[in-house]
Protein backbone atom coordinates (compact mmCIF):
# COMPACT_ATOMS: atom_id res chain seq x y z
CA UNK A 1 0.00 0.00 0.00
CA UNK A 2 1.29 3.45 -0.87
CA UNK A 3 1.60 6.20 1.71
CA UNK A 4 -1.58 8.12 2.45
CA UNK A 5 -2.01 11.52 0.80
CA UNK A 6 -1.85 13.22 4.20
CA UNK A 7 -0.69 11.79 7.45
CA UNK A 8 -0.55 13.76 10.67
CA UNK A 9 1.14 12.30 13.70
CA UNK A 10 1.04 13.44 17.29
CA UNK A 11 0.42 17.08 16.37
CA UNK A 12 0.54 19.26 19.48
CA UNK A 13 -0.22 22.98 19.62
CA UNK A 14 -0.21 25.36 22.54
CA UNK A 15 -1.42 28.90 23.15
CA UNK A 16 -0.22 31.50 25.59
CA UNK A 17 2.59 33.90 26.26
CA UNK A 18 6.08 33.69 27.66
CA UNK A 19 4.89 32.94 31.16
CA UNK A 20 2.19 30.33 30.65
CA UNK A 21 1.22 28.03 27.81
CA UNK A 22 -1.73 25.72 27.45
CA UNK A 23 -2.15 22.76 25.18
CA UNK A 24 -4.97 23.40 22.73
CA UNK A 25 -4.30 20.53 20.36
CA UNK A 26 -3.02 17.45 22.13
CA UNK A 27 -1.22 14.74 20.16
CA UNK A 28 -3.67 14.46 17.32
CA UNK A 29 -3.02 11.83 14.64
CA UNK A 30 -4.90 11.01 11.47
CA UNK A 31 -4.38 9.94 7.88
CA UNK A 32 -6.39 10.50 4.70
CA UNK A 33 -5.86 8.70 1.42
CA UNK A 34 -6.31 10.20 -2.00
CA UNK A 35 -9.98 10.30 -2.95
CA UNK A 36 -11.11 9.79 0.65
CA UNK A 37 -12.53 12.17 3.22
CA UNK A 38 -12.19 12.64 6.96
CA UNK A 39 -14.45 14.78 9.10
CA UNK A 40 -13.31 16.42 12.33
CA UNK A 41 -16.25 17.27 14.57
CA UNK A 42 -16.23 19.32 17.74
CA UNK A 43 -17.59 22.40 19.46
CA UNK A 44 -16.03 25.86 19.08
CA UNK A 45 -12.88 25.90 21.11
CA UNK A 46 -12.31 22.17 20.78
CA UNK A 47 -9.20 22.80 18.67
CA UNK A 48 -10.54 21.48 15.38
CA UNK A 49 -9.80 24.59 13.31
CA UNK A 50 -6.41 25.00 14.97
CA UNK A 51 -5.57 21.46 13.95
CA UNK A 52 -6.07 22.46 10.31
CA UNK A 53 -4.05 25.63 10.83
CA UNK A 54 -1.31 23.55 12.39
CA UNK A 55 -1.19 21.21 9.39
CA UNK A 56 -1.05 24.28 7.14
CA UNK A 57 1.62 25.89 9.40
CA UNK A 58 -0.65 28.94 9.43
CA UNK A 59 -1.12 29.33 13.16
CA UNK A 60 -1.95 32.72 14.69
CA UNK A 61 0.83 34.53 16.52
CA UNK A 62 -0.14 33.34 20.01
CA UNK A 63 -0.26 29.68 18.97
CA UNK A 64 2.86 27.57 18.76
CA UNK A 65 3.40 24.20 17.13
CA UNK A 66 5.11 22.14 19.84
CA UNK A 67 5.50 18.75 18.27
CA UNK A 68 4.27 16.32 15.67
CA UNK A 69 4.82 15.50 12.04
CA UNK A 70 2.88 16.19 8.87
CA UNK A 71 3.62 13.84 6.00
CA UNK A 72 2.41 14.40 2.47
CA UNK A 73 2.52 11.30 0.26
CA UNK A 74 5.37 9.93 2.36
CA UNK A 75 7.37 13.17 2.49
CA UNK A 76 7.60 14.95 5.80
CA UNK A 77 6.80 18.66 5.72
CA UNK A 78 8.55 21.21 7.89
CA UNK A 79 6.38 22.77 10.61
CA UNK A 80 8.66 25.73 11.29
CA UNK A 81 11.02 27.97 9.46
CA UNK A 82 11.51 29.34 6.02
CA UNK A 83 10.47 26.35 3.97
CA UNK A 84 7.04 25.71 5.51
CA UNK A 85 5.24 27.62 2.76
CA UNK A 86 7.26 26.38 -0.20
CA UNK A 87 6.99 22.76 0.88
CA UNK A 88 3.21 23.01 0.87
CA UNK A 89 2.86 24.93 -2.39
CA UNK A 90 0.64 23.21 -4.87
CA UNK A 91 0.10 20.24 -2.58
CA UNK A 92 -2.07 21.44 0.29
CA UNK A 93 -4.84 24.00 0.00
CA UNK A 94 -7.49 25.27 2.36
CA UNK A 95 -10.94 26.84 2.23
CA UNK A 96 -12.46 28.96 4.97
CA UNK A 97 -15.72 29.55 6.78
CA UNK A 98 -16.54 33.04 5.61
CA UNK A 99 -15.97 33.38 1.88
CA UNK A 100 -16.56 37.15 1.91
CA UNK A 101 -13.63 37.86 4.18
CA UNK A 102 -11.52 35.13 2.61
CA UNK A 103 -11.63 36.83 -0.78
CA UNK A 104 -9.69 40.01 -1.44
CA UNK A 105 -12.24 42.81 -1.93
CA UNK A 106 -10.15 44.77 -4.43
CA UNK A 107 -9.47 42.12 -7.05
CA UNK A 108 -11.99 40.50 -9.41
CA UNK A 109 -12.89 36.89 -8.65
CA UNK A 110 -11.30 35.53 -11.81
CA UNK A 111 -8.08 37.43 -11.21
CA UNK A 112 -7.75 35.91 -7.75
CA UNK A 113 -8.09 32.41 -9.16
CA UNK A 114 -5.71 33.27 -12.02
CA UNK A 115 -3.14 34.72 -9.61
CA UNK A 116 -2.85 31.34 -7.89
CA UNK A 117 -2.85 29.47 -11.21
CA UNK A 118 -0.04 31.75 -12.37
CA UNK A 119 2.17 32.03 -9.31
CA UNK A 120 1.64 28.57 -7.88
CA UNK A 121 0.64 26.65 -10.98
CA UNK A 122 3.47 28.26 -12.96
CA UNK A 123 1.35 29.29 -15.94
CA UNK A 124 1.73 32.31 -18.17
CA UNK A 125 -0.61 35.22 -17.54
CA UNK A 126 -2.83 34.24 -20.45
CA UNK A 127 -2.86 30.53 -19.66
CA UNK A 128 -3.61 31.30 -16.01
CA UNK A 129 -6.68 33.31 -16.99
CA UNK A 130 -7.91 30.49 -19.26
CA UNK A 131 -7.37 28.07 -16.39
CA UNK A 132 -9.24 30.35 -14.01
CA UNK A 133 -12.29 30.35 -16.30
CA UNK A 134 -12.09 26.56 -16.56
CA UNK A 135 -11.98 26.23 -12.80
CA UNK A 136 -14.85 28.65 -12.21
CA UNK A 137 -16.82 26.60 -14.69
CA UNK A 138 -15.79 23.38 -12.92
CA UNK A 139 -17.03 24.62 -9.55
CA UNK A 140 -20.40 25.36 -11.07
CA UNK A 141 -20.35 29.09 -11.75
CA UNK A 142 -22.51 29.68 -14.76
CA UNK A 143 -21.35 32.19 -17.36
CA UNK A 144 -17.90 31.88 -15.80
CA UNK A 145 -16.31 34.06 -18.47
CA UNK A 146 -18.53 36.99 -17.52
CA UNK A 147 -18.61 36.30 -13.79
CA UNK A 148 -14.81 36.18 -13.65
CA UNK A 149 -14.78 39.97 -13.87
CA UNK A 150 -17.07 40.43 -10.88
CA UNK A 151 -15.70 41.54 -7.54
CA UNK A 152 -16.44 39.44 -4.45
CA UNK A 153 -19.04 41.88 -3.11
CA UNK A 154 -21.04 41.45 -6.30
CA UNK A 155 -21.34 37.68 -5.85
CA UNK A 156 -23.81 35.74 -3.73
CA UNK A 157 -22.63 33.77 -0.70
CA UNK A 158 -22.71 30.46 -2.51
CA UNK A 159 -20.82 31.81 -5.49
CA UNK A 160 -18.15 33.28 -3.23
CA UNK A 161 -17.59 29.89 -1.65
CA UNK A 162 -17.35 28.37 -5.14
CA UNK A 163 -14.71 30.97 -6.05
CA UNK A 164 -12.82 30.05 -2.87
CA UNK A 165 -12.88 26.42 -3.95
CA UNK A 166 -11.71 27.36 -7.44
CA UNK A 167 -8.80 29.30 -5.89
CA UNK A 168 -7.84 26.31 -3.80
CA UNK A 169 -8.01 24.04 -6.85
CA UNK A 170 -5.90 26.47 -8.89
CA UNK A 171 -2.86 25.38 -6.93
CA UNK A 172 -3.67 21.78 -7.98
CA UNK A 173 -3.44 20.35 -4.49
CA UNK A 174 -3.58 16.71 -3.48
CA UNK A 175 -5.17 17.56 -0.15
CA UNK A 176 -7.96 20.05 0.52
CA UNK A 177 -8.57 21.23 4.06
CA UNK A 178 -12.06 22.64 4.66
CA UNK A 179 -12.69 24.80 7.72
CA UNK A 180 -16.47 24.91 8.24
CA UNK A 181 -16.97 25.98 4.63
CA UNK A 182 -20.77 25.75 4.70
CA UNK A 183 -21.58 27.13 8.15
CA UNK A 184 -22.26 30.63 6.82
CA UNK A 185 -24.46 29.41 3.96
CA UNK A 186 -28.18 28.78 3.59
CA UNK A 187 -29.35 25.17 3.67
CA UNK A 188 -30.03 24.78 -0.04
CA UNK A 189 -26.70 26.38 -0.91
CA UNK A 190 -24.94 24.32 1.74
CA UNK A 191 -26.28 21.19 0.09
CA UNK A 192 -25.02 22.39 -3.31
CA UNK A 193 -21.53 23.13 -1.97
CA UNK A 194 -21.36 19.78 -0.17
CA UNK A 195 -22.35 18.02 -3.39
CA UNK A 196 -19.67 19.96 -5.23
CA UNK A 197 -16.93 19.07 -2.75
CA UNK A 198 -18.00 15.44 -2.85
CA UNK A 199 -17.85 15.26 -6.63
CA UNK A 200 -14.49 17.06 -6.74
CA UNK A 201 -13.12 14.57 -4.23
CA UNK A 202 -14.16 11.70 -6.44
CA UNK A 203 -13.19 13.23 -9.80
CA UNK A 204 -9.84 14.78 -8.81
CA UNK A 205 -9.02 12.12 -6.23
CA UNK A 206 -8.61 14.82 -3.61
CA UNK A 207 -7.99 13.90 -0.02
CA UNK A 208 -10.52 15.94 1.93
CA UNK A 209 -10.37 16.99 5.58
CA UNK A 210 -13.61 18.59 6.63
CA UNK A 211 -14.03 20.42 9.93
CA UNK A 212 -17.50 21.13 11.28
CA UNK A 213 -19.50 21.40 14.47
CA UNK A 214 -22.42 19.64 12.82
CA UNK A 215 -22.42 15.84 12.80
CA UNK A 216 -25.18 15.79 10.20
CA UNK A 217 -23.13 17.86 7.75
CA UNK A 218 -20.09 15.68 8.25
CA UNK A 219 -22.24 12.58 7.82
CA UNK A 220 -23.25 13.73 4.36
CA UNK A 221 -19.70 14.12 3.03
CA UNK A 222 -17.19 12.13 5.10
CA UNK A 223 -16.52 8.41 5.18
CA UNK A 224 -14.47 8.67 8.32
CA UNK A 225 -14.96 10.94 11.29
CA UNK A 226 -12.93 12.02 14.29
CA UNK A 227 -14.66 13.59 17.29
CA UNK A 228 -12.59 16.20 19.04
CA UNK A 229 -12.96 17.39 22.63
CA UNK A 230 -10.72 19.83 24.47
CA UNK A 231 -7.90 19.43 21.97
CA UNK A 232 -7.97 15.63 21.76
CA UNK A 233 -9.53 13.08 19.49
CA UNK A 234 -11.91 11.16 21.72
CA UNK A 235 -13.40 8.85 19.12
CA UNK A 236 -12.61 7.97 15.52
CA UNK A 237 -14.05 5.55 13.03
CA UNK A 238 -16.17 5.04 9.92
CA UNK A 239 -18.97 7.64 9.99
CA UNK A 240 -21.90 5.26 9.62
CA UNK A 241 -20.76 2.88 12.36
CA UNK A 242 -19.82 5.70 14.68
CA UNK A 243 -23.21 7.35 14.36
CA UNK A 244 -24.99 4.03 14.63
CA UNK A 245 -23.42 3.29 17.96
CA UNK A 246 -21.15 5.90 19.49
CA UNK A 247 -18.64 4.48 21.94
CA UNK A 248 -17.73 7.73 23.66
CA UNK A 249 -20.30 9.45 25.90
CA UNK A 250 -19.39 12.79 24.30
CA UNK A 251 -20.09 11.46 20.81
CA UNK A 252 -23.39 10.14 22.08
CA UNK A 253 -24.15 13.57 23.52
CA UNK A 254 -23.33 15.30 20.24
CA UNK A 255 -25.39 12.74 18.39
CA UNK A 256 -28.41 13.36 20.60
CA UNK A 257 -28.02 17.12 20.47
CA UNK A 258 -28.52 17.09 16.71
CA UNK A 259 -32.11 17.38 15.71
CA UNK A 260 -32.83 16.77 12.12
CA UNK A 261 -35.99 17.07 10.13
CA UNK A 262 -36.59 13.33 10.35
CA UNK A 263 -37.17 13.35 14.06
CA UNK A 264 -39.49 16.33 14.21
CA UNK A 265 -41.05 16.98 17.58
CA UNK A 266 -38.23 15.40 19.53
CA UNK A 267 -36.86 18.10 21.75
CA UNK A 268 -33.08 18.00 21.46
CA UNK A 269 -31.17 16.64 24.40
CA UNK A 270 -28.16 18.55 25.50
CA UNK A 271 -24.84 17.75 27.13
CA UNK A 272 -24.75 19.35 30.58
CA UNK A 273 -21.96 21.81 31.30
CA UNK A 274 -19.59 23.67 29.05
CA UNK A 275 -16.40 22.95 27.18
CA UNK A 276 -13.53 23.77 29.59
CA UNK A 277 -11.24 26.61 28.63
CA UNK A 278 -7.62 25.83 27.86
CA UNK A 279 -5.67 25.90 31.09
CA UNK A 280 -8.68 24.77 33.07
CA UNK A 281 -8.74 21.16 31.94
CA UNK A 282 -9.61 18.74 34.72
CA UNK A 283 -7.17 15.95 35.51
CA UNK A 284 -7.89 12.55 34.00
CA UNK A 285 -10.35 12.31 31.14
CA UNK A 286 -11.12 15.91 30.06
CA UNK A 287 -14.80 15.05 29.67
CA UNK A 288 -15.25 13.60 33.18
CA UNK A 289 -17.03 16.57 34.81
CA UNK A 290 -19.79 16.42 32.20
CA UNK A 291 -19.99 12.64 31.94
CA UNK A 292 -22.61 10.40 33.53
CA UNK A 293 -20.28 7.40 33.56
CA UNK A 294 -17.34 9.12 35.20
CA UNK A 295 -15.76 7.38 38.18
CA UNK A 296 -12.49 7.78 40.09
CA UNK A 297 -10.49 6.11 37.34
CA UNK A 298 -11.79 8.74 34.89
CA UNK A 299 -10.99 11.55 37.29
CA UNK A 300 -7.44 10.51 38.04
CA UNK A 301 -6.12 8.01 35.53
CA UNK A 302 -4.93 8.64 32.01
CA UNK A 303 -7.31 7.92 29.19
CA UNK A 304 -5.81 7.36 25.76
CA UNK A 305 -7.35 6.80 22.35
CA UNK A 306 -7.29 3.03 21.84
CA UNK A 307 -8.68 0.86 19.09
CA UNK A 308 -12.04 -0.61 19.88
CA UNK A 309 -13.24 -3.98 18.66
CA UNK A 310 -14.83 -3.11 15.35
CA UNK A 311 -12.67 -2.37 12.33
CA UNK A 312 -11.10 1.07 12.16
CA UNK A 313 -12.66 2.35 15.35
CA UNK A 314 -10.89 3.88 18.30
CA UNK A 315 -12.18 5.51 21.44
CA UNK A 316 -10.71 7.30 24.45
CA UNK A 317 -13.06 6.11 27.16
CA UNK A 318 -12.74 3.66 30.04
CA UNK A 319 -16.43 2.82 29.88
CA UNK A 320 -16.93 2.60 26.14
CA UNK A 321 -18.83 -0.66 26.48
CA UNK A 322 -21.42 0.94 28.73
CA UNK A 323 -22.37 3.66 26.23
CA UNK A 324 -25.77 2.74 24.83
CA UNK A 325 -26.89 3.12 21.24
CA UNK A 326 -28.84 6.34 20.74
Amino acid sequence: MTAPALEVRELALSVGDRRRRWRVVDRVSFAVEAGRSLGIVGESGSGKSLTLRGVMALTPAAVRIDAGSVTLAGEELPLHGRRTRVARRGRLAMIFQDPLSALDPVHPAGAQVAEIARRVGGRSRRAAWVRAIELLDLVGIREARRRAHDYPHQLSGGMRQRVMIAMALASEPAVLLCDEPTTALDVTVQAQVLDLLDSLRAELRLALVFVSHDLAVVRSICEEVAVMYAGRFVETGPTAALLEHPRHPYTLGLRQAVVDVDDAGRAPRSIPGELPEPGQLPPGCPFNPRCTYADDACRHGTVELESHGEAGRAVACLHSDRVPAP
Partner: protein
Amino acid sequence: MGSPTPVLSVRGLTVSFASAQRERILAVDGVSLQLHAGESVGLVGESGSGKTTVARAIAGLLTPDSGKIELDGTSLTRRSRSDRRAIQLVFQDPFASLNPRRRIRGVLRELLHVHGLASDPEIEARCVELMSLVGLPAAALDRRPAAFSGGQRQRIAIARAIAVEPRLIVADEPVSALDVSVGATILALFDRLRSELDLGLLLISHNLAAVAAICDRVAVMYLGRVVEEGPRAAVFDDPRHPYTRALLDAAPRLRPEPSEGPRIRDEAPPAGARPSGCAFHDRCPRAEEICRRESPELRAVDGQPQRAAACHFSNEPHTGGRAR
Protein backbone atom coordinates in the same frame (compact mmCIF):
# COMPACT_ATOMS: atom_id res chain seq x y z
CA MET B 1 -55.50 25.64 19.83
CA GLY B 2 -55.91 27.96 22.83
CA SER B 3 -58.17 30.97 23.03
CA PRO B 4 -60.16 32.11 20.02
CA THR B 5 -58.41 35.49 19.84
CA PRO B 6 -54.82 34.91 18.87
CA VAL B 7 -52.09 36.58 20.90
CA LEU B 8 -50.52 37.83 17.73
CA SER B 9 -52.22 38.43 14.47
CA VAL B 10 -50.36 39.86 11.50
CA ARG B 11 -52.30 40.73 8.38
CA GLY B 12 -50.95 41.82 5.04
CA LEU B 13 -47.64 43.02 6.48
CA THR B 14 -45.67 44.88 3.82
CA VAL B 15 -42.27 46.48 4.36
CA SER B 16 -40.03 48.12 1.79
CA PHE B 17 -36.59 49.66 1.93
CA ALA B 18 -34.86 52.24 -0.22
CA SER B 19 -32.06 50.72 -2.26
CA ALA B 20 -28.73 52.44 -2.93
CA GLN B 21 -30.29 53.64 -6.18
CA ARG B 22 -33.21 55.04 -4.19
CA GLU B 23 -35.72 52.55 -5.56
CA ARG B 24 -38.18 50.97 -3.18
CA ILE B 25 -37.47 47.31 -2.66
CA LEU B 26 -40.17 45.11 -1.21
CA ALA B 27 -38.60 43.05 1.55
CA VAL B 28 -41.88 41.72 2.92
CA ASP B 29 -44.93 41.51 0.72
CA GLY B 30 -48.30 40.86 2.29
CA VAL B 31 -47.35 38.43 5.06
CA SER B 32 -50.07 37.18 7.41
CA LEU B 33 -49.44 35.10 10.53
CA GLN B 34 -51.35 34.08 13.63
CA LEU B 35 -50.08 32.80 16.91
CA HIS B 36 -52.04 31.67 19.97
CA ALA B 37 -51.03 31.71 23.61
CA GLY B 38 -48.58 28.97 24.43
CA GLU B 39 -48.20 28.09 20.78
CA SER B 40 -44.93 27.98 18.90
CA VAL B 41 -44.76 28.85 15.24
CA GLY B 42 -41.69 28.43 13.09
CA LEU B 43 -41.02 30.94 10.34
CA VAL B 44 -38.56 29.42 7.91
CA GLY B 45 -36.70 30.97 5.04
CA GLU B 46 -33.23 31.55 3.65
CA SER B 47 -31.32 34.82 3.60
CA GLY B 48 -33.22 37.48 1.72
CA SER B 49 -36.59 35.88 2.40
CA GLY B 50 -37.61 38.79 4.63
CA LYS B 51 -38.04 36.75 7.79
CA THR B 52 -35.88 39.04 9.93
CA THR B 53 -37.78 42.05 8.65
CA VAL B 54 -41.00 40.38 9.75
CA ALA B 55 -39.47 39.84 13.19
CA ARG B 56 -38.36 43.46 13.53
CA ALA B 57 -41.72 44.78 12.34
CA ILE B 58 -43.56 42.62 14.87
CA ALA B 59 -41.23 43.80 17.62
CA GLY B 60 -41.87 47.41 16.61
CA LEU B 61 -38.32 48.16 15.54
CA LEU B 62 -39.45 49.30 12.12
CA THR B 63 -42.63 50.72 10.73
CA PRO B 64 -44.36 48.70 8.05
CA ASP B 65 -45.60 50.33 4.84
CA SER B 66 -48.95 48.70 5.35
CA GLY B 67 -50.59 45.83 7.17
CA LYS B 68 -51.91 45.28 10.64
CA ILE B 69 -50.19 43.88 13.67
CA GLU B 70 -52.61 43.02 16.47
CA LEU B 71 -51.88 41.95 20.02
CA ASP B 72 -54.78 40.14 21.69
CA GLY B 73 -57.08 41.70 19.12
CA THR B 74 -55.95 45.32 19.51
CA SER B 75 -54.01 47.01 16.80
CA LEU B 76 -50.45 48.10 17.55
CA THR B 77 -50.13 51.26 15.52
CA ARG B 78 -48.73 53.37 18.33
CA ARG B 79 -47.13 51.24 20.99
CA SER B 80 -47.42 52.09 24.63
CA ARG B 81 -44.78 50.91 27.06
CA SER B 82 -46.92 47.93 28.03
CA ASP B 83 -47.50 47.05 24.36
CA ARG B 84 -43.75 46.94 23.90
CA ARG B 85 -43.43 44.78 26.98
CA ALA B 86 -45.80 42.20 25.52
CA ILE B 87 -43.58 41.32 22.57
CA GLN B 88 -39.92 40.58 23.18
CA LEU B 89 -37.18 39.83 20.71
CA VAL B 90 -34.22 37.47 21.03
CA PHE B 91 -31.49 38.10 18.51
CA GLN B 92 -29.22 35.91 16.46
CA ASP B 93 -25.81 37.02 17.64
CA PRO B 94 -25.44 36.74 21.41
CA PHE B 95 -22.14 38.60 21.15
CA ALA B 96 -23.83 41.69 19.69
CA SER B 97 -27.11 41.67 21.55
CA LEU B 98 -25.77 42.31 25.04
CA ASN B 99 -24.37 45.68 26.05
CA PRO B 100 -20.69 44.95 26.73
CA ARG B 101 -20.46 47.60 29.46
CA ARG B 102 -23.42 46.64 31.59
CA ARG B 103 -23.49 44.00 34.28
CA ILE B 104 -26.32 41.55 33.91
CA ARG B 105 -27.91 42.69 37.15
CA GLY B 106 -28.04 46.30 35.96
CA VAL B 107 -29.78 45.37 32.74
CA LEU B 108 -32.43 43.25 34.46
CA ARG B 109 -32.99 45.74 37.29
CA GLU B 110 -33.51 48.57 34.86
CA LEU B 111 -36.20 46.64 33.00
CA LEU B 112 -37.97 45.51 36.17
CA HIS B 113 -37.85 49.04 37.55
CA VAL B 114 -39.06 50.81 34.41
CA HIS B 115 -42.04 48.52 34.05
CA GLY B 116 -42.75 48.47 37.77
CA LEU B 117 -42.62 44.68 37.79
CA ALA B 118 -41.01 44.34 41.17
CA SER B 119 -40.79 46.59 44.20
CA ASP B 120 -37.28 47.53 45.25
CA PRO B 121 -36.92 44.84 47.92
CA GLU B 122 -38.17 42.17 45.51
CA ILE B 123 -35.99 43.13 42.59
CA GLU B 124 -32.93 41.18 43.67
CA ALA B 125 -34.93 38.02 44.29
CA ARG B 126 -36.57 38.37 40.90
CA CYS B 127 -33.19 38.73 39.19
CA VAL B 128 -32.00 35.54 40.84
CA GLU B 129 -35.21 33.79 39.85
CA LEU B 130 -34.77 34.88 36.22
CA MET B 131 -31.26 33.49 36.19
CA SER B 132 -32.42 30.18 37.52
CA LEU B 133 -35.25 30.08 34.98
CA VAL B 134 -32.67 30.16 32.19
CA GLY B 135 -30.31 27.80 34.01
CA LEU B 136 -27.61 30.20 35.16
CA PRO B 137 -26.21 30.66 38.67
CA ALA B 138 -27.07 33.84 40.61
CA ALA B 139 -23.38 34.76 40.54
CA ALA B 140 -23.78 35.46 36.84
CA LEU B 141 -25.61 38.68 37.76
CA ASP B 142 -22.34 40.28 38.83
CA ARG B 143 -20.59 39.69 35.56
CA ARG B 144 -20.47 41.53 32.26
CA PRO B 145 -21.24 39.76 28.99
CA ALA B 146 -17.57 39.18 28.17
CA ALA B 147 -17.42 36.60 30.96
CA PHE B 148 -19.84 34.27 29.19
CA SER B 149 -19.76 31.81 26.32
CA GLY B 150 -22.10 32.15 23.36
CA GLY B 151 -24.64 29.74 24.78
CA GLN B 152 -24.61 31.44 28.18
CA ARG B 153 -25.06 34.82 26.55
CA GLN B 154 -28.06 33.58 24.66
CA ARG B 155 -29.51 32.44 27.99
CA ILE B 156 -28.94 35.92 29.38
CA ALA B 157 -30.67 37.42 26.35
CA ILE B 158 -33.60 35.12 27.01
CA ALA B 159 -33.65 36.11 30.68
CA ARG B 160 -33.76 39.75 29.59
CA ALA B 161 -36.69 38.97 27.30
CA ILE B 162 -38.75 37.11 29.90
CA ALA B 163 -37.92 39.65 32.63
CA VAL B 164 -40.68 41.95 31.38
CA GLU B 165 -43.22 39.09 31.42
CA PRO B 166 -44.10 39.19 27.73
CA ARG B 167 -46.97 37.41 26.01
CA LEU B 168 -44.86 36.51 23.04
CA ILE B 169 -41.20 35.98 22.24
CA VAL B 170 -39.93 36.47 18.73
CA ALA B 171 -36.64 34.61 18.39
CA ASP B 172 -34.68 35.61 15.31
CA GLU B 173 -32.26 32.81 14.39
CA PRO B 174 -31.43 32.28 18.08
CA VAL B 175 -29.25 29.24 17.49
CA SER B 176 -27.63 29.78 14.12
CA ALA B 177 -24.58 31.50 15.62
CA LEU B 178 -24.09 28.63 18.05
CA ASP B 179 -22.65 25.15 17.80
CA VAL B 180 -25.22 22.47 17.14
CA SER B 181 -24.79 21.03 20.61
CA VAL B 182 -25.16 24.42 22.31
CA GLY B 183 -28.06 25.36 20.07
CA ALA B 184 -29.85 22.23 21.20
CA THR B 185 -29.82 23.40 24.80
CA ILE B 186 -31.18 26.80 23.79
CA LEU B 187 -34.00 25.22 21.81
CA ALA B 188 -34.83 23.01 24.76
CA LEU B 189 -34.87 26.09 26.98
CA PHE B 190 -37.28 27.91 24.68
CA ASP B 191 -39.52 24.87 24.65
CA ARG B 192 -39.55 24.64 28.42
CA LEU B 193 -40.18 28.36 28.98
CA ARG B 194 -42.99 28.34 26.43
CA SER B 195 -44.91 25.71 28.34
CA GLU B 196 -43.96 26.90 31.84
CA LEU B 197 -44.77 30.55 31.23
CA ASP B 198 -47.52 30.01 28.65
CA LEU B 199 -45.60 32.14 26.17
CA GLY B 200 -46.20 32.38 22.47
CA LEU B 201 -43.03 31.66 20.53
CA LEU B 202 -42.29 32.78 17.00
CA LEU B 203 -39.08 31.00 16.05
CA ILE B 204 -37.43 32.41 12.98
CA SER B 205 -34.79 30.26 11.37
CA HIS B 206 -33.22 29.16 8.14
CA ASN B 207 -32.79 25.79 9.72
CA LEU B 208 -35.73 23.42 9.35
CA ALA B 209 -34.31 21.13 11.99
CA ALA B 210 -34.52 23.80 14.69
CA VAL B 211 -38.13 24.46 13.77
CA ALA B 212 -38.86 20.77 13.54
CA ALA B 213 -37.70 20.26 17.10
CA ILE B 214 -39.94 22.67 18.96
CA CYS B 215 -42.64 24.21 16.73
CA ASP B 216 -46.32 23.28 16.43
CA ARG B 217 -46.88 25.11 13.19
CA VAL B 218 -44.62 26.17 10.36
CA ALA B 219 -44.67 28.97 7.80
CA VAL B 220 -42.17 28.98 4.95
CA MET B 221 -41.11 32.27 3.35
CA TYR B 222 -39.55 32.85 -0.04
CA LEU B 223 -38.65 36.32 -1.37
CA GLY B 224 -40.87 38.23 1.02
CA ARG B 225 -43.97 36.05 0.87
CA VAL B 226 -45.29 33.09 2.80
CA VAL B 227 -45.36 30.20 0.33
CA GLU B 228 -46.58 27.44 2.61
CA GLU B 229 -47.96 27.11 6.11
CA GLY B 230 -49.61 24.52 8.27
CA PRO B 231 -49.15 22.11 11.16
CA ARG B 232 -45.56 20.96 11.37
CA ALA B 233 -46.16 17.26 10.88
CA ALA B 234 -48.32 17.76 7.82
CA VAL B 235 -45.92 20.19 6.18
CA PHE B 236 -42.83 18.08 6.85
CA ASP B 237 -44.42 14.78 5.83
CA ASP B 238 -46.16 16.05 2.76
CA PRO B 239 -44.94 19.47 1.60
CA ARG B 240 -47.19 21.17 -0.92
CA HIS B 241 -44.75 23.76 -2.17
CA PRO B 242 -41.67 22.66 -4.10
CA TYR B 243 -39.53 25.12 -2.14
CA THR B 244 -40.49 23.47 1.15
CA ARG B 245 -39.63 20.18 -0.48
CA ALA B 246 -36.26 21.55 -1.53
CA LEU B 247 -35.50 22.83 1.97
CA LEU B 248 -36.36 19.44 3.42
CA ASP B 249 -34.19 17.66 0.88
CA ALA B 250 -31.26 19.95 1.51
CA ALA B 251 -31.33 19.67 5.31
CA PRO B 252 -28.38 17.62 6.53
CA ARG B 253 -29.44 14.38 8.15
CA LEU B 254 -27.93 11.86 10.48
CA ARG B 255 -29.45 8.97 8.59
CA PRO B 256 -28.75 8.86 4.88
CA GLU B 257 -31.79 9.17 2.64
CA PRO B 258 -31.83 6.42 0.06
CA SER B 259 -33.38 8.54 -2.66
CA GLU B 260 -31.40 11.75 -2.65
CA GLY B 261 -32.08 13.40 -5.98
CA PRO B 262 -30.72 16.45 -7.75
CA ARG B 263 -30.71 19.69 -5.79
CA ILE B 264 -32.58 22.79 -6.80
CA ARG B 265 -30.24 25.11 -8.61
CA ASP B 266 -28.75 28.45 -7.74
CA GLU B 267 -29.69 30.80 -4.99
CA ALA B 268 -32.62 33.07 -4.39
CA PRO B 269 -32.26 36.36 -6.31
CA PRO B 270 -31.99 39.58 -4.30
CA ALA B 271 -35.26 41.07 -3.12
CA GLY B 272 -35.17 43.74 -5.83
CA ALA B 273 -35.01 41.18 -8.65
CA ARG B 274 -38.16 39.20 -8.03
CA PRO B 275 -38.93 36.98 -11.04
CA SER B 276 -42.30 37.39 -12.77
CA GLY B 277 -45.09 34.92 -12.13
CA CYS B 278 -44.30 32.54 -9.31
CA ALA B 279 -41.11 33.93 -7.74
CA PHE B 280 -39.73 30.40 -7.40
CA HIS B 281 -40.30 29.27 -10.98
CA ASP B 282 -36.72 29.73 -12.19
CA ARG B 283 -35.39 27.34 -9.56
CA CYS B 284 -38.38 24.99 -9.49
CA PRO B 285 -38.05 21.49 -10.91
CA ARG B 286 -41.76 21.39 -11.55
CA ALA B 287 -42.29 24.78 -13.19
CA GLU B 288 -44.63 24.97 -16.15
CA GLU B 289 -45.77 27.74 -18.43
CA ILE B 290 -48.42 29.02 -16.01
CA CYS B 291 -45.77 29.49 -13.29
CA ARG B 292 -43.89 31.94 -15.47
CA ARG B 293 -47.02 33.99 -16.09
CA GLU B 294 -49.17 33.88 -12.99
CA SER B 295 -48.23 34.41 -9.41
CA PRO B 296 -50.04 31.77 -7.31
CA GLU B 297 -52.05 32.96 -4.30
CA LEU B 298 -51.59 31.43 -0.85
CA ARG B 299 -54.69 29.24 -0.64
CA ALA B 300 -55.95 26.34 1.43
CA VAL B 301 -54.93 22.85 0.42
CA ASP B 302 -57.90 20.69 -0.61
CA GLY B 303 -59.15 18.62 2.27
CA GLN B 304 -56.74 20.17 4.76
CA PRO B 305 -58.26 23.50 5.84
CA GLN B 306 -55.44 24.19 8.33
CA ARG B 307 -52.88 24.22 5.56
CA ALA B 308 -52.16 26.62 2.76
CA ALA B 309 -49.63 26.80 -0.04
CA ALA B 310 -48.84 29.29 -2.80
CA CYS B 311 -48.27 26.91 -5.68
CA HIS B 312 -50.31 26.21 -8.79
CA PHE B 313 -49.92 22.52 -8.05
CA SER B 314 -50.47 22.65 -4.31
CA ASN B 315 -53.12 19.97 -4.44
CA GLU B 316 -50.68 17.35 -5.68
CA PRO B 317 -48.01 15.98 -3.37
CA HIS B 318 -44.54 17.31 -4.24
CA THR B 319 -41.95 14.70 -4.63
CA GLY B 320 -40.02 17.72 -5.77
CA GLY B 321 -36.57 17.42 -7.21
CA ARG B 322 -36.03 13.83 -6.38
CA ALA B 323 -38.55 12.37 -8.81
CA ARG B 324 -36.56 13.68 -11.71
